[in-house]
């Protein structure tokens, strides 16, 4: 008797469902900083992923050294902008008041500009279409993390 195989689509559905259950818990109203912490961690993680992806693509010859250099410079600026934002979020001890929100928005604008530059100068300039598409997926992750702060 042939062993019964589970269709790939069913496995994918289960993976997505499991991720949504674990990754989307209700935020604790007594910890208003948690969603900011998670978003900053996601930005840091997405930049780290993009560095590793760029290294992998470069070692396979799927991006040129010049494209690698442009991406590296733009990633450094984005990482620095997120680092400044991270330091400010880490210094918060309570939900931000109006003046702190204004400060956070200003710092976040720097992050948004840096990520846009990373996309416009770095990713869009990549000649290999497949590499460009893959790198764009990490840009989308960064942008999704930034949207957490749209309610500031």
């Amino acid at each position, binding site marked *: 008797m042939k062993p019964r195989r589970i269709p790939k689509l069913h496995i*994918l559905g289960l993976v997505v469902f499991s991720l*949504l259950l674990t*990754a989307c*818990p209700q935020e604790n109203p007594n910890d208003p900083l948690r969603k900011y912490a998670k*978003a900053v961690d996601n930005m840091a993680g997405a930049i780290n*992923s993009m560095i590793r992806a760029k290294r992998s693509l470069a070692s396979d010859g799927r991006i040129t050294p010049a494209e*690698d250099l442009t991406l*590296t410079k733009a990633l450094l600026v984005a*990482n620095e902008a997120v680092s400044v934002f991270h330091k400010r979020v880490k210094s918060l001890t309570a939900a931000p008041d109006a003046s702190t929100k204004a400060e956070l928005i200003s710092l976040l604008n720097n992050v948004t500009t840096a990520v846009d530059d990373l996309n416009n100068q770095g990713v869009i300039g990549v000649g290999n279409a497949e590499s460009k598409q893959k790198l764009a997926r990490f840009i989308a992750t960064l942008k999704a*993390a930034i949207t957490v702060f749209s309610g500031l």
Partner: protein
Amino acid sequence: MDWLTIITNLLPLLPGGGGQAGALAQIAADLIQRIKSQSGMTTEQILDRAGVTLDDNKRMLLEDLERLQGANP
């Protein structure tokens, strides 16, 4: 956070989502796992990890910059 956007964007890089097994699939899987692991961490731990990662990112990028500028002065 728009978790669905993040996961939807990364899934095509995974073998089960249409991508190919390899370095990029592993990188995407690691990022999903990182996001997933936040549910078992305190806010302080999450912020500390983000700080460590940002420092690590800077070190890696400066290494790359030195290597690439050495090759393309």
